[in-house]
């Protein structure tokens, strides 16, 4: 057991941090959101620097991919990094043409990045399917949740099957990627809220000095850190079904608390487009509902642990 990042992991975190400082951030996310756009520049920069393929490189794997996914989410990147850096390599052993969107067979609601995706990976139960999206396959959706989305029109059953059992593998990787994104997004919510409560003064003192505020933010920290280690362990273990569902279950529940508490303590300011919180907080709700949502993750975690034949 060792919870310290090794030299490679530290180097990856530093390098991706430097890249994100240049290409991502709240300002960029807000700008892209005005036209419901996808960040192709960031996508290309991450690809050129090798971060999209980190799961497939020598000596690195899903844990390093999860670290990248978390960092991109924390920087507010508007890219499908979870699908491209973690899910696709884990599922197929190679990089797939991006952007990549993930959907479940029969999904009728908006799907993240579907309006911009070239590749769609579909969970059809027993198997996963891969298809290339063309212009008429989706319609863009207007959404207030700070991510570009599309509604898929493709009929069910289209695309190439990735084989028996690939459905389960897709679900595990998807849950892991989702949990990693949720961790980065929650950490950013907490960070901007901490800055706010340290600065904002009422009754002659910083509101962050009130115990009523401190305790609830400390509870948020427990949820974020718990989610983080669940993600790292599941990723290190190559996304087993049980550990991935467990991480997603905990993170999705944590996301509800983080949304409520960070908005509570940033007051009316937190709802404005002036303040950065919404860049991350609104996404938390979208992440929380994906891939079956918290109830689905919890059932999967329980089934994998106790219902194996």
């Amino acid at each position, binding site marked *: 057991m060792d*919870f310290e990042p090794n030299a490679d992991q530290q180097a990856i975190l530093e390098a991706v941090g430097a890249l994100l400082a240049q290409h991502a951030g709240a300002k960029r996310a807000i700008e892209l959101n005005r036209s419901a756009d996808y960040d192709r520049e960031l996508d290309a920069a991450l690809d050129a620097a090798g971060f999209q393929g980190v799961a497939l490189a020598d000596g690195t794997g899903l844990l390093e991919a999860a670290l990248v996914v978390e960092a991109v989410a924390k920087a507010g990147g508007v890219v499908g990094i979870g699908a491209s850096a973690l899910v696709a390599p884990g599922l197929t052993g190679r990089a797939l043409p991006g952007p990549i969107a993930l959907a479940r067979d029969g999904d009728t609601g908006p799907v993240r990045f579907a309006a911009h995706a070239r590749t769609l990976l579909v969970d059809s139960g027993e198997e996963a399917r891969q298809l290339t999206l063309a212009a008429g396959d989706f319609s863009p959706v207007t959404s207030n949740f700070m991510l570009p989305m599309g509604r898929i029109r493709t009929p069910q059953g289209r695309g190439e099957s990735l084989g028996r059992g690939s459905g389960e593998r897709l679900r595990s990787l998807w849950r892991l990627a989702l949990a990693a994104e949720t961790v980065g997004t929650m950490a950013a919510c907490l960070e901007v809220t901490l800055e706010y409560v340290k600065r904002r003064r009422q009754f002659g003192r910083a509101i962050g000095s009130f115990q009523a505020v401190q305790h609830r933010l*400390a509870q948020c920290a*427990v949820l974020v850190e718990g989610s983080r280690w669940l993600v790292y362990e599941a990723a290190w273990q190559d996304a087993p079904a049980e550990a991935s569902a467990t991480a997603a279950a905990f993170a999705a529940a944590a996301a509800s608390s983080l949304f409520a508490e960070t908005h509570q303590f940033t007051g009316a300011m937190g709802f404005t487009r002036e303040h950065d919180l919404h860049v991350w907080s609104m996404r938390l709700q979208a992440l929380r509902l994906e891939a079956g949502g918290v109830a689905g993750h919890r059932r999967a*975690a*329980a089934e994998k642990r*106790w219902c194996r034949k």
Partner: protein
Amino acid sequence: MEFRWSDEDVAFRRELREFLAQALPPDWAELSKHGPGSDAQAEFSKEFCPKLARKGWLTQHWPKQYGGRDASPWRHAILGEEMWRIGEPRSSQYMNVNWVGPTIMAYGTPEQKAFHLPRISAGSAFWCQGFSEPEAGSDLVSLRTLAVRDGDEYVINGSKIWTSYVNYAEHCFLIVRTDPSSKRHQGISVLLVPMQTSGIEVREIPSVVGDKYFFEVFFSDARVPVSCRLGPENDGWEVVKYALAFERVGAARYARAADILDELAELARARGLLTEPTVLEKLGEARAICEASRLLTYRVIDVRAHGRPPSADTNLARVAGTLAERAVSELALEIFGPEALEYGHVAESHFRLAMTAGVAVGTTEINLNLVANRFLGLPRE
């Protein structure tokens, strides 16, 4: 990062389980239903801990010079998990090896080390912890129990409360004020008090947690030699802080909770409930909390394994441990239903011990204060 037990660790856990299968009596489940502090379990630990000691496992994480094996904190954590998940056959002796011994190693005189450490590592020492007072609970530094120097003795007056294990303890790890005019963190000292000292009276406080769980201890002109003092006079708060850092995640509560949850799932299966979505959701939710608690505790062990000073990670882990206990113990009552109302039922025993989690060893609120100040950098109120 590496989330994997070494081959040696895996082998150790296997060997330990084999040993337990041999060393525990057939009626262990019955014996352990009253909790680690019960008379029966303390009595059992007198034969069990020396066996563990002979195996070299009881204090394996201690340095060789004190009778340990320099084993990694991870190895000791495995022992803790395996002990707690079955209801702690070491009884209160887990405290000795987790924090009493290590604190004596750090602050003890050669005589204190020579006297106490071999007894603890042999598995035949019983300690209790004299921290809380009627007017000093979470606000521990407002303690008033006084030890006044008289020649080469201290004369102790005052009282301690909620003291578990005192009914059979031989020594008390006692915090006192040695400077009567001092305030807060100053003027505090630690005394290692033999419980047979005259002037000490023990009274049980009946509670719903179980018989002989809480006690009150009264000191009336109890005299102990100055040589009982552990660490500096009047600067004992650093000793207390050192002990607390070890204590707060001493008990692998998540391991017990996770085991109970497995039992619950088996019961749900037997009743055909394991196909019900709402039951699966509740089980999955509780499982996720137990797993988060396990990893946050591992993080604390990792910090120790890297030789770094204790951090606020300890407080995060404590808060999560309490969440896990609550999630599982409440679910246990719900799944078993009214059956769980009978004393000694597995769900009842777990619930009874779990309900103290947010209060024992520092309340959740104190832990949240420390997370807010040290981990989040929020200003003190």
